[in-house]
C-alpha cells in the first residue's frame, strides 16, 4: 500500500526534527523551509538524503531548490 500524505508528512516531520531540532509538529504543509522554518540549503540537502532513505524517492540538487514548502516536498515524493 502506498504511503498516505499523512504518513509522509509524519515521516518528514521526524526527519526534520532529527536534522534541525525543529519540533515535528511545526512541520505542516503550508510552511516555507526558508521563511517559516529557518532551514538552510545544507540542511535541505541532509533532509533530501534522509527522505530518499525513508521514502525511496531521489531528490536531486537541481530539483531541491524548487521545493520551497513542505507541501512541495510532499507532492514531489508522492509523484
Amino acid at each position, binding site marked *: 500500500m502506498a504511503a498516505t500524505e499523512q504518513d509522509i508528512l509524519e515521516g518528514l516531520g521526524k526527519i526534520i526534527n532529527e536534522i534541525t531540532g525543529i519540533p515535528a509538529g511545526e512541520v505542516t504543509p503550508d510552511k516555507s523551509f526558508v521563511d517559516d522554518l529557518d532551514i538552510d540549503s*545544507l540542511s535541505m540537502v541532509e533532509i533530501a*538524503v534522509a527522505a530518499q532513505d525513508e521514502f525511496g524517492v531521489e531528490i536531486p*540538487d537541481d530539483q531541491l531548490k524548487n521545493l520551497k514548502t513542505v507541501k512541495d516536498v510532499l507532492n514531489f515524493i508522492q509523484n
Partner: protein
Amino acid sequence: MRIPDVAPGARVLAFGHYQPATIVTNDDLAKTIDTNDEWIQSRVGIKERRIAPDGESLEDMSVQAGGKALAASGLSAGDIDLVIVATCTLETQIPNAAAIVAHRLGIRAPGAFDVNAACAGFCYALATASAAVRSGDARHVLVIGAEKLSQWIDWTDRSTAVIFADGAGAAVVGASDTPGIGPVVWGSAGDRSDAIIIDDRDSFLRQEGQTVFRWATTALHPVAKEACDRAGVDPSELAAFVPHQANLRIIEAIARKLGADNAVIARDIVTAGNTSAASIPLALSRMLERGEVRSGDLALALGFGAGLTYAGQVIEIP
C-alpha cells in the same frame, strides 16, 4: 635480482605543525564581503582561520611543520630517505615543493615528490610512505601536508572566502615491529571532477557546495568503516576520528554515521579553517599538543576532496 628484507609494519614516529601568525576572524571578513559571524559559524563551523602573508610561501610553512616533526621524532636529517609533500596549491608547476623543503631542512638527496589528491592528499602520501618503509625502499619518510589556499581564493566570493585557509602539518614515518598505520582505503569519483575546481593559473577555486556536501555526507562513512574493518579495528575502539576539516557539519554527519562512540571528533576547523591537504596532520598534531589524544591511541584519518578523491586509514598516535 633481490629485494630488501621487508619491515613488519610502519608507524608515525612524530607529528609537527605550523600555522601562519595572522588570524582572520569572521568579523574581519564581514568588513569586506556580505557575510557575518553567525552565518559562517552555522554553515561551516569556522570562527577564525590563519592566512599567510605574501612573503610566506607554501614551502616556508612546510619547512616549519616538517622541521618540528623531525625534531620531535628524535631523528636527524640524515635518517630521512624520502620526502613527500601533499598539496594542491603550489604556485609553481616545477620544481616541486618536496625537493626544496628537503634541501632547506638539510636532508641530503632524499627521494622527493609532491602528491596532488587535494584534501585527501595527506592520507595518500601517508599510505605511500608506509608502503615505502615496509618495502625497505626508505628507512624513514617525512610526509607533509601544506596549503596556501589564500592565493587561489577570490576574496570577494563569500562562498569560498569564508572556508579556506593556510597551514601545514607533518609526520615522520618509520619501521615498526607492530603495524601503526593501517591499510589505506582509497578511491575517486572522476565523474564529479567539476565539483571543486581551479581551472587554470588565472582562476580562483570554485566549488559546488551542495554537490560536495551531499557526496561527503552520504558516500564517505562506508569508506571510514572499511578503513576500520581492514585494520581489524572496531569503530568503538577509536580514540579519535580525524576527518578532513572541510565543514563542521560534514564532519559531524560522517561521525554520526560512523558510530565511533568513544572517539574525540576533530573540530580543528573551528580555529584553523579548511586547509585542504594540511588539515588532517594539522588537526592531529594540535590534538596531541592539547592532550586530546595520547600515545598508543588509535585515530581514524579520512581525507576527501577535489577529484573527487578520498582515502582513509587507522593511525596509532606516536
